[in-house]
């Protein structure tokens, strides 16, 4: 970007637009914003691992599932309906699960890290699928409408609830998550992660505990995924094991790549474009996977920097073209 003013302006304009969406747009599009915001939280955390630390998890849906199922279990089994409590419980559950899983996974990098995370994800998937009495099996569990800020919002029907209070609640969570992640990546901790990504050997010899930093990044990204997963559950209304299936993890990687993993806001853009493009494609052509597969293949071959990479290239003519 040319000057620091321009990104700030863009950010302010986007922020204002997002706040005004429920007032101006038809409810259908407003409800599409809800998964965008949920995935936004997931992807912010995922990119701490992918873009900043250089580890690609192919099992991140595990933590999305933990978050979503935490919400479903708390609301249906324990009668706990406060969304704030659900988010907190999801974060704690994810941290508890991610501590051992992460400690084992970060001993490996590259393809082995990807495979190990995929295997852990599939363990949870088969658990959800097979232990019918605990998890509802392939039918999943219902996610009851949560209370927000201690209020039931009884006067709102389902759509009004989702496009009103729930929309702004999700937005608030996304904003807090974004600010927090911004703090994390610009802290010395974030700098260490980037060092580890670029040169783990050098990082180690500079006294950075590579495994410990990777482990911390893994846990933070797991907590983000679970909070995002918990946010995703109320708009769906029913959580089922497909949330944890490995192709869902693949879609998470896809979204980050679509937006651009090299940029802080890339993943948010990726989630937005993915969800609205999917909706548009599906409305004209039921075979969205064919279109999205082609888009992904194009991105990988021609534009690995994603959409942000395409935008960023133009204002920086000094950068040498790579063949």
């Amino acid at each position: 970007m040319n000057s620091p003013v321009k990104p700030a302006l863009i950010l302010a304009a986007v922020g204002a637009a997002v706040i005004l969406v429920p007032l101006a747009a038809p409810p259908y599009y407003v409800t599409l914003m809800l998964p965008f915001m949920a995935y936004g939280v997931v992807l912010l955390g995922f990119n701490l691992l992918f873009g900043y630390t250089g580890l690609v998890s192919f099992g991140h849906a595990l933590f999305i599932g933990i978050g979503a199922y935490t919400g479903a279990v708390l609301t249906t089994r324990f009668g706990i309906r406060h969304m704030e409590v659900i988010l907190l419980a999801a974060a704690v559950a994810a941290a508890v699960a991610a501590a051992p899983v992460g400690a084992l996974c970060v001993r490996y990098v590259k393809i082995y890290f990807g495979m190990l995370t995929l295997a852990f994800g599939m363990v949870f998937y088969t658990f959800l699928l097979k232990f019918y009495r605990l998890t509802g099996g392939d039918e999943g569990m219902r996610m009851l409408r949560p209370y927000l800020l201690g209020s039931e919002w009884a006067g709102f029907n389902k759509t009004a609830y989702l496009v009103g209070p729930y929309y702004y609640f999700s937005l608030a969570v996304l904003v807090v998550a974004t600010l927090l992640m911004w703090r994390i990546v610009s802290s010395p901790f974030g700098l260490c992660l980037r060092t580890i990504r670029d040169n783990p050997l050098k990082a180690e010899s500079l006294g950075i505990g590579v495994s410990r930093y990777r482990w911390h990044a893994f846990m933070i990204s797991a907590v983000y995924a679970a909070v995002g997963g918990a946010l995703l559950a109320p708009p769906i209304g029913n959580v089922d094991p497909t949330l944890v299936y490995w192709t869902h993890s693949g879609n998470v990687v896809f979204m980050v790549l679509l937006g651009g993993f090299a940029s802080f806001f890339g993943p948010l853009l990726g989630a937005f474009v993915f969800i609205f493009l999917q909706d548009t494609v599906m409305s004209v052509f039921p075979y969205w996977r064919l279109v999205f597969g082609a888009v992904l293949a194009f991105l990988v071959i021609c534009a690995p920097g994603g959409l942000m990479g395409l935008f960023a290239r133009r204002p920086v003519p000094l950068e040498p073209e790579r063949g």
Partner: protein
Amino acid sequence: MTANLVNVIMGGVFHAAILFLVAAGLQLVFGVQKIFNLACGSFYALGAYSGISAVSYFTGHGGSPALFIVPLALGGLAVGLVGLVVERGLLRFVYDRDETFQLLLTFALVLMLEDVIRLTWGTAPASTGGLYLAYGQARILGSTVPVYNLIVIAASVAIALGMSYLLGRTAFGRIIRAAADNREMAEALGVDMRSVYARVFTLGTMLGTLGGALVIPATAAMSEMGVELIVEAFAVVVIGGLGSMRGAFVGALVVGVLRSIAISVYPELEMLLIYLIVIAVLLWRPRGLFGAAAA
């Protein structure tokens, strides 16, 4: 008791025979091209559907049901040529890239092929009808096993032997092993990598599509069968060791038989057991049981 045990084990070995074919394709491609091909499951599904089409064309034109295995295998092998298109059209652009991008490109193939199958063959499950028992049943130690299963097991073992001959004893096999070991050196010695990669990937794809075609008389084809199989093939190669043919063989037997036993003893365990073994192997021996020399 023995009859039951034989039943369970033979079921597992049949499944292992199929898994071996898909995993062998995965191993071959990983060993030489260093690409973990997530789409090998999709090739398997593609082979299943085209096998069905070939068989129904054959029987529809007066072919004898007893010979159905011929069009089945040919249909499976023929669609494997799609591997050549994929390699030349997509994969060759990413050989120099980070393996994350290679993995994502094969994920793009998974997405595309799943819908290509839906578009071509529809969403309803398809099958070859009642041909499964066309060869009758054999009695082994008091249990009945379809002869077709025995044929597939024999074919899979024959292919395993053929692969080990190809890799170990032929000129092409030596080139493949050289390319797997040290790509630059092989290239410097005059090996045309483009053609090696194209042939290896096509061969790997054909193993997968043949596996899909051969499984289909025993079950029904669904468009999701590919993404389900990839996680099993993945377990096979992790347990056996990435890039190792012997590993694929042993891994397939472990996964196939254990899964079969788990289903009959405690169905909830099924794949859970397999994934737990995968995790144990990855932690204890990340290179797998036979992968020490690879990677």
